């Protein structure tokens, strides 16, 4: 290894010295989050205020980390919580266990559970780590509740439906890249990504 090699090596270092900086002053300043980021969950409502969750437990059933606990109950006939016979009576997510894989979102037949892009929530007790239904439910305005230990920035609550199917419904490959759900998901929607199937249309 000659002297020239060292100079060449430092050349790269000094060369980059004057490039634009890619690091940011986190947490004062935040970079834009990836479109496919999986963050803290929300439980959505319909426009009339009814809860979308029907307590079917498919999310709990599919959860690989066993972090979701759901129990259903008969909807009260005079004051139904959700449309249909059954509603989610208990809904808890244990964020000490959650790996944000989003399988719950895929499993949900009513699009009741979606994920926001929030990952900055630093609870300090086990109780705080277990989010109950009251905490996960969106407010009457359709926006997620902001708990004291969560670091929400302006406009971040717009993106509660930041998810994409990793698999196609019924395994039908032609669904890839298509929006196969209704447009009223949570609060704000976005176009599907392309480039997954490698087809001509991508």
């Amino acid at each position, binding site marked *: 290894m000659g002297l020239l090699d060292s100079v060449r090596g430092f050349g790269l270092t000094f060369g980059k010295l004057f490039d634009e900086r890619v690091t940011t002053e986190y947490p004062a300043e935040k970079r834009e989050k990836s479109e496919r980021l999986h963050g803290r969950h929300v439980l959505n409502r319909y426009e009339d205020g009814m809860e979308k969750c029907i307590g079917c437990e498919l999310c709990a059933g599919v959860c690989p980390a066993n972090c979701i606990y759901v129990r259903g109950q008969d909807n009260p006939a005079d004051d139904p919580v959700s449309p249909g016979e059954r509603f989610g009576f208990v809904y808890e997510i244990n964020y000490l266990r959650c790996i944000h894989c989003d399988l719950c979102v895929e499993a949900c037949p009513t699009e009741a559970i979606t994920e926001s892009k929030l990952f900055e929530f630093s609870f300090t007790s086990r109780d705080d780590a277990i989010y109950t239904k009251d905490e996960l439910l969106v407010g009457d305005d359709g926006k997620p509740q902001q708990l004291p230990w969560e670091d929400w920035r302006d406009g971040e609550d717009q993106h509660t439906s930041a998810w994409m199917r990793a698999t196609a419904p019924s395994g*039908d490959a*032609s*669904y890839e890249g*298509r929006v*196969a759900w209704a447009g009223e998901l949570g609060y704000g929607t976005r176009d599907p990504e392309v480039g997954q199937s490698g087809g001509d249309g991508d």
Partner: protein
Amino acid sequence: MGVNSYLAHAPGYVDNEGPKIVTGRFVHEDSHTLARSLATGGYDGLKRALEQSPTSIHDIVRDATLLGRGGAGFPAGVKWGFCPPGVWPRYLVVNGDESEPGTYKDRLLMQRDPHQLIEGSLIACYALGLSQCFLYVRGEMALAQERIAIALNEAYDAGLVGTNILGTDLSVDIVLHWGAGAYIVGEETALIESLEGNRGMPRLKPPFFPAAIGLYGKPTIVNNVETLANLPWIINNGAAAYKAFGSETSPGTRMFAVSGHVKRPGVYEVEHGTTTFRELLYGDNYCQGIRAGHELKMFIPGGGSAPWFFPEQLDLPLEARPVGAAGSMLGSGAIVVMDETTDAVKACLRVVRFFARESCGKCTPCREGTSWEETILQRIHDGLGRPGDIDMLLDIADNISPGPYPTAADEANGLDAVPFPPKQTTICPLGPSSVAPITSAIRRFRHEFEAKITARELIPVEATGP
């Protein structure tokens, strides 16, 4: 009231020139009374039968090759021989639940000559050694029920029914049962269920036919009204005289109920097997042709459940076997004639709707399939059809009746006939019957279906998903 015209007192019946085996008394206005019956030879057949041994009566019926008139056309004499030996009691059940669309011959027989039916039933009971007979009359036939009830009372009073009939050892009780109104009860096992007080749903026949295990689990002979009405004449005149009429394989006469676009619709007693459709529909003694200014488009040769025939099939004889080979069936002898003004889609929908409403609900393919067919046809008819609907209809039909469905030949398009009967995924033939109009109509008039679909009035919103 001369020959060869409608009879005012027997609406629907045309008194044509020809041999009369079962409608002989129809010319009399009071043909349903015991007095008229006795005055015109009523119960002579029974008397004559009682002079002979039951076996010889059975032999006469077998020799006469009396074919069942309910639809299957099975020889009655052979059917009678199916009872397992040594199992008693046995029952005779008279199937008067005539409800095939287009059929109204049994109704006339029951209304106009109930004593002939009673006499026929008694002869059958005597031949088979039975002492209990059930007359199952369709729920909607109020006049027939009333006339049979009166006739039965008269016959009981006259010692013609009951214990020691005409002073002999023969004792037969005849019970009149009113149906509650269900097409499916015309199927013999469903009729037996209904008689037992259950919901009228067919039983699976193989391995056990009613002749082996029927009403209340006992051997039961189920015969059609017209079949039994033939018996008095056969006993009076002998098997040879009976076989002098009609063809060799289908002797005697048969009643045909013609309806639709002919000049003179009605019930005709026609020589079995020798007369052709053309003679019946166009003959001067019969229907006298299609109504003025129109031409034949299609006709149903054997009631709503039969595949359709077209002008090419007009020269077929009125006989079960050739009609079956040509892709349809004579069935219950109901001929529905449609001229060129008929909308094939609507006609098809009309027949399918009947079967959808009358399905008993037992077998899944029939219960769900017939009403699905109906909704699709309704949609096409309403101008809301979709491009794939025709193939879908045929595929649903295939799920009810797998394999090629019987249809008539279509020489113009080089299509051969598929002979009767169809295969089925259901217990009874009701489900497959609903397929008959669909396959017949689509095969011949596919363009009419396509025209309705392409000329749709409303464009549906594009379905979501690919």
